[in-house]
């Protein structure tokens, strides 16, 4: 099945899907979407890549164990959670916002960073699970 077409297609598909996943992540605050679904889409991108090019190649592409994304994501979410406490002595997880909206993304605040954390963790988790199972199948 590893036809050249699929391989080529997936090479283009990967960045496209990743972009799409980020789009879904960012718009989550306004329309259906968000970190979780975004993260899943991104993982599907990698899974497809692995499907076409073999697991080893995908791993080489990522250059690190996908599991590493989990603590990174958790840390991002954590920082988003504690930042209000550190900055303005507000309770954990309080939303704090930049006063002006940014283009495309809209309002930027701790909630967005939190969602990015979710996004990263979801990628890390799903890739870890799928890669591990595939390897030991």
């Amino acid at each position, binding site marked *: 099945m590893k036809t050249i077409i699929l391989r080529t297609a997936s090479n283009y598909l990967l960045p496209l899907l990743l972009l799409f996943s980020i789009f879904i992540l960012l718009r989550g605050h306004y329309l259906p979407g968000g970190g*979780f679904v975004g993260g899943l889409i991104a993982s599907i991108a990698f899974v497809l890549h692995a499907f076409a090019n073999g697991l080893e190649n995908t791993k080489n592409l990522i250059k690190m164990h996908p599991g590493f994304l989990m603590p990174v994501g958790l840390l991002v979410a954590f920082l988003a959670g504690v930042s209000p406490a550190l900055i303005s002595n507000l309770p954990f997880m309080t939303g704090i916002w930049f006063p002006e909206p940014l283009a495309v993304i809209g309002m930027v605040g701790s909630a967005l960073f939190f969602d990015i954390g979710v996004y990263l963790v979801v990628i890390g988790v799903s890739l870890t699970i799928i890669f591990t199972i595939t390897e*030991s199948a």
Partner: protein
Amino acid sequence: MEFLLAILIGLLYASGLYMMLRRSLVKLIIGLILLGNGANLLIFLLGRITKGKPPIIPEESKFFLDAYADPVPQALILTAIVISFGLQSFAIVLIKRAYKVVKTDDLDQMNSTDEFS
């Protein structure tokens, strides 16, 4: 719709339980998944369902203008679904591992820890 949904939820619970009562580890896990789906739908139903009014504030306004679906159950279910996904994937791997070690997925042959020793 609510009536039928309630019956289907009952069916999900019943079949989930029935699967749990079988001797196969695979069936057991599928049963748990069905039960989980049932519970999620139950939250959905009991949070009262509304047709065609997603809880998304229209582009032009700052809050809702008319009736809309309760977003809280949706958020709860979303959390519950994701959590059960975590548990399910672990369970599925548990099947795999148990099969490798115990060499069967027959639950009746996994009784050694309850035996007197």
